[in-house]
């Protein structure tokens, strides 16, 4: 029996013959499970197959959990539990021995599940004491916070993740209470309450952690076909595996994509009066602010530019709004988190520091920088000559069709609201969008107007443009 399954494993091996792999991974999954768990296994398998080619490791898969035995595990450095866990004592003992001898483990989602009926105290300790407590239902997307941006598992992702739809587990006790546990990613409390039928209302919900007594990472993602849809989350998954596998293979160099990069305008720094004493309360008082030299995109990020990002990162495009759009229309229905992820990706592609503009930079640029003529709308006194606003179009319009402002920047007023990098106020709950939009009245399109929104908020009239040091 064992020899048959070994042959099958060899057939499933994805590293070319004749090349010594960096390390060897054996992934276990089950077929007779919740369909959402089966869907995830398929997606993870194809992701790992590609990754193993790039990063020179062996990735074998099996659905036969009796392969969790001492003899076979001798061939592997890392064991992955994709959507299940061992159910017999013999399998558990072999796994325990494997881990005690320094083996690597990645467990996804239900692989870490344990409750009062599990009867495997060693595993609870291995998980850092975490016992399953509750979950949300139905599965939902969530905002995740990266707790340590310098850890090898999380160093290549932005400080927040827009995690695709998943069933999130909460644990009691939380593994954080264990001093040997290092929590790497946690569910942002902003998500609470999360769920409809079953609701997680509050509490500490770590989603990725390592018990530093072992060479292991637990990853709570793994429920449904959408889990592998976010490139940054995938990067985390890949980096976790490479970390427990002690990979020596260098990160492949990504070819810099010339097309799709935003055209940047240099803005000479200076001092200006930010705000408006005649405006809303949050625009007052007008005050002296100095900004350093920076660069800012000539136009709002377009659908075409966003599509390049999506194609390069296997990311889904956001829902299209009801009005007609071309590739030259500004991307909409993207959150602050999405915009930040785009800037992070651009930075990784180019080696430059792309980011969102600060509010001060945005307003300085919208007013025309050191060339400012003091217009109430960016580029003019007559709003209609410089901006799409006040419902004069049926939707957003292709970028750069109206007159540019003093610096050569288009659509800083109107078309879509643009995300800025900093918090709206000291409560740190909202970021600021600027510049008004096509379906917003004149007053709220003034260059000083501020519109606060939560970081995951998305809408048909919200987009952004990038800045760069």
């Amino acid at each position, binding site marked *: 029996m064992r020899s048959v399954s070994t042959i099958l494993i060899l057939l499933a091996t994805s590293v070319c013959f004749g090349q010594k792999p960096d390390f060897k991974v054996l992934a276990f999954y089950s077929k007779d499970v919740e369909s959402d768990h089966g869907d995830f296994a398929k997606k993870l398998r194809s992701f790992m197959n590609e990754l193993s080619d790039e990063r020179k490791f062996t990735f074998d898969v099996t659905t036969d959990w009796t392969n969790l035995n001492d003899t076979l595990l001798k061939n592997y450095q890392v064991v992955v539990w994709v959507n299940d866990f061992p159910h017999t004592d013999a399998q558990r003992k072999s796994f325990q021995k494997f881990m005690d001898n320094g083996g690597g483990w990645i467990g996804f989602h239900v692989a870490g599940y344990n409750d009062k009926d599990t009867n495997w105290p060693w595993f609870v300790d291995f998980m850092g004491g975490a016992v399953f407590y509750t979950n949300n239902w*139905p599965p939902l997307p969530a905002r995740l916070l990266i707790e340590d941006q310098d850890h090898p598992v999380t160093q290549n992702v932005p400080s927040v993740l827009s995690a695709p739809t998943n069933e999130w587990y909460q644990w009691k006790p939380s593994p954080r209470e264990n001093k040997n546990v290092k929590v790497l990613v946690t569910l942002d409390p902003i998500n*609470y*309450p*999360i*769920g*409809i*039928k079953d*609701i997680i209302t509050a509490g500490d919900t770590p989603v990725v952690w390592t018990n530093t007594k072992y060479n292991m990472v637990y990853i709570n993602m793994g429920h449904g076909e959408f889990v592998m849809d976010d490139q940054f989350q995938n990067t985390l998954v890949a980096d976790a595996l490479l970390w427990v596998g002690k990979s020596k293979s260098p990160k492949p160099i990504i070819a810099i994509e010339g097309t799709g990069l935003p055209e940047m305008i240099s803005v000479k720094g200076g001092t200006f009066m930010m705000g408006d004493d005649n405006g*809303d309360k*949050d625009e007052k008082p007008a005050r002296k602010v100095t900004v350093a030299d920076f660069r800012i995109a000539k136009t709002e990020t377009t659908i075409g530019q966003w599509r390049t990002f999506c194609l390069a990162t296997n990311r889904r495009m956001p829902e299209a*709004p*009801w009005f007609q759009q071309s590739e030259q229309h500004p991307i909409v*229905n993207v959150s602050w988190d999405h915009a930040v992820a785009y800037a992070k990706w651009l930075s990784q592609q180019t080696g430059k520091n792309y980011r969102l503009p600060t509010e001060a930079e945005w307003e300085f640029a919208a007013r025309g920088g050191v060339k400012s003529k003091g217009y109430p709308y960016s580029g003019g006194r007559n709003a209609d000559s410089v901006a799409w606003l006040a419902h004069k179009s049926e939707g957003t319009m292709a970028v750069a069709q109206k007159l540019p402002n003093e610096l050569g920047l288009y659509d800083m007023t109107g078309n879509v609201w643009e995300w800025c990098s900093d918090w*709206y*106020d000291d*409560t740190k*709950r*909202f970021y600021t969008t600027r510049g008004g939009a096509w379906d917003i009245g004149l007053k709220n399109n003034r260059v000083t107007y*501020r*519109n*606060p*929104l*939560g970081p995951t*908020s*998305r*809408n*048909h009239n919200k987009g952004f443009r990038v800045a760069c040091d």
Partner: protein
Amino acid sequence: MKYTFSLVALIFFGCHVAIAQPRFKVAAFYSTNGEMDHINFAKDALYFFELISEQQQFTFDATRDWSNLNDNYLANYDIVIWLNDFPKEDDQRAAFERFIARGGAWYGCHVSAFNLPDSKWKWFNTFLGGAYFKTNNWPPLPAKVIVEDRNHPVTKRLPASYISPTGEWYQWKPSPRENKDVKVLMSIAPESYPLGVKTVIEGGDTPVLWTNTKYRMLYMNMGHSNKIFSNSEQNTMITDAVLWLGKAKELKVKSE
């Protein structure tokens, strides 16, 4: 007895199967050309109402085609829900008025009741109890709400007050409370004021759930975020609201 009935139903039909004998029929109207928060609310509402329609044995249909607001279509239904929009055409409005006149029920959410003093559809304003939209908080926030009548069938299972999930809360002028036919069931708690960050509701009377007792209707201001169904107590109220409008008693549901 009730319990036995649902158990028997479960044995016969299992989960996710058509209901043999619906107790009443609901048609929900919604739109996807609008604010994302309104679209997300509708999406969650479809999930929620489908779930409870199985448990509570009623038919739940949903349409984005507002031209279905006509006599023939409405003849099939006992309750009409407007999740995130309202009819714009005169013939749709007239068909809705006839539906209500012959005893049909309405459950309106959030923007579905948006109307201003210069809105043309005067009947609708009367139907709402005279409430015109006055202002709202911005950005959307959770708010503590008070349950004003805990004996009413819709609110009987709610606590005296609770934090209702993130929403854009409307204040009305006049407040529907000024209408003697209106029964206000819930309103914003005084300690929630000032409510808002950029645009603030400073105080005053802000009913968020009411019925105009001259009609079979209920208006619920909740409906602006993907968080509305994340409070199980409020979800119970929404279930009870549909049952009340459908003149049906709650069936005890065995949890899975």
